[in-house]
């Protein structure tokens, strides 16, 4: 976009039609697009990262699978089958690890986006631009989703080959629909985290805390029935839980059940609306709180 400029000879001030006609908006999609492109351009400069993020999570999740094998023997256990309804716990876990990559990304990348801008020294210039902050976050979230999709697919392919598991390829369409809804819900979740990080600053500890609690509540290497009853309710509030359960069902059984898929979609829509509302409110509160104390650029 080119912005025509008018230079007043007497004052030397620079004005633009954009600034003159500017009215505060809830969302600026063009700014989101520009920001996403900027982030993608930086990401493409480091192509090895895409591959590394496809391999590194394997080192984190493989111990769980190896532990299951050490306790129950290779592949299956009667108790696990009774609890989850699935035979093979390796197949059960790997697809969930794939879906969980999006959660991890939303916490570590999007939630921490402004913190990384702060480290780069670009946070304050960004915050004086006349665009809604949420559009900056949406842009960051979009570019991270693209990067994550690539890395998560690499992870799924490598894990499937290493552990010898297969999934129903025919279910790709409903899986993509469910994944997209989950990603939208996660955007709201990451806005919430971004607001918290603006307030608390120290990203490593807060992010670790949120990341680990989310991991415990997510039914990745165990079915949700394995959690204590109170934790099960909390688990449903994590945007990925419903998605993991639905996607796993689709990918492993290869059966599409319209009623249960519709129910899961309704629940995801509720989560999307809920998390976007809470996320935007929390982020705005965090932003105002930080601005009032003048600690925006502080470490």
């Amino acid at each position: 976009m080119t912005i025509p400029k008018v230079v007043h000879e007497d004052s030397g001030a620079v004005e633009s039609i954009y600034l003159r006609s500017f009215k505060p908006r809830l969302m600026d999609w063009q700014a989101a697009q520009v920001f996403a492109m900027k982030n993608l351009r930086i990401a493409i400069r480091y192509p090895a990262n895409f591959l590394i993020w496809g391999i590194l999570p394997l080192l984190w999740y493989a111990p769980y699978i190896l532990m299951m094998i050490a306790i129950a023997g290779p592949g299956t256990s009667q108790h696990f089958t009774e609890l989850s309804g699935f035979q093979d716990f390796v197949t059960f876990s790997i697809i969930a690890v794939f879906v969980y990559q999006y959660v991890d990304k939303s916490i570590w990348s999007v939630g921490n986006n402004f913190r990384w801008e702060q480290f780069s020294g670009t946070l304050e210039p960004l915050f004086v631009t006349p665009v809604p902050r949420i559009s900056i976050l949406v842009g960051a979230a979009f570019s991270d989703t693209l990067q994550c999709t690539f890395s998560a697919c690499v992870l799924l392919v490598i894990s499937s080959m290493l552990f010898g598991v297969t999934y129903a390829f025919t279910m790709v369409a409903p899986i993509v629909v469910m994944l997209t809804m989950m990603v939208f819900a996660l955007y709201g979740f990451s806005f919430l985290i971004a607001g918290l990080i603006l307030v608390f600053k120290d990203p490593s500890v807060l992010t670790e805390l949120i990341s680990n609690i989310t991991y415990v509540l997510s039914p990745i290497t165990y079915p949700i029935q394995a959690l204590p009853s109170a934790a099960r309710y909390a688990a449903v509030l994590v945007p990925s839980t419903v998605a993991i359960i639905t996607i796993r069902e689709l990918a492993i059984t290869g059966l599409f059940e319209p009623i249960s898929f519709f129910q899961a979609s309704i629940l995801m829509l509720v989560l999307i609306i809920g998390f976007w509302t809470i996320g935007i409110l929390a982020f705005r509160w965090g932003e105002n709180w930080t601005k009032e104390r003048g600690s925006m650029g502080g470490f």
Partner: protein
Amino acid sequence: MTYQESEAYQRMWTRKGLRSEIRAAWAISLNIWKIELSYPLSVLWFIVMPFLWFIPMLITGSAVAGSSESIVLNDLAGTLDWVTYIAIGTSIIGLTISLMWGTGFSLRREQNAGTLETLMTTPMGRSTLVWGSMLHNLQHGGLGVILQLAAAILLFGVSLNVWGILPALGIIALAIIGLQGVAFAITCIVLLAKQGWMIVEFITSGLLLVAPMAYPISVLPPILQYVSNASPLTWSTEAFRGFLMNGLAYQGVAQAVVALVILDIIFFLAGALMFRYTERYVRRKGALEQF
């Protein structure tokens, strides 16, 4: 009287010997504690971290085992009690990560704070900065081990053999020497690559993957079993758990101690030499304060 004639200055320049280095390392360790404790969230994380790592493993184990006993594990590792096996094994994770990341990134942390060059101009040994950080991380990670084991005993019915506590601490002391070698190597990566966290993540996660913390190494693919046998973390985890589960009746003590001593010598010498040459190289290049 000029500063150079002052008693503090004279004392500083005449300082020498191991005692002075230990005092400097202790001061560095206390300094890191002060910084960490000034962030309330860090304190909270420090307390809950051992549980948050252990709980998913416990739930996963329960989901596949269905009870607190596992016949498969008994065949592989000689114990039915998988909860105790995993609780003791994984209690070292926090200590290992603390030593690798905390110590390995000690110079980088000072660099970010803008104090690295100042510290490098003090008359303490160059490696004392890394040793001081190790001392802190030993306390930090050690407290984490105690917290996790205490919680496992109180909440999950894990039982430890009290006669094995002292020998287990001896094993930790042996393990630290080898792990300090790895920490020196990580420091070199950080000094050369500046960020280098991805390489460090691969090394740390790789070592944790091949260590028998939550499973015996017999479940690993054969090639990884060879790698596992060459890691000091493997022998220290086995011996630490062996002593805490079986007390003085632990059978594999001689093999574990011999393997640990050999690996300690190799890892420590290699790490210390790498650090010595890298630190000199970086200073010669004038890249110490580069980001």
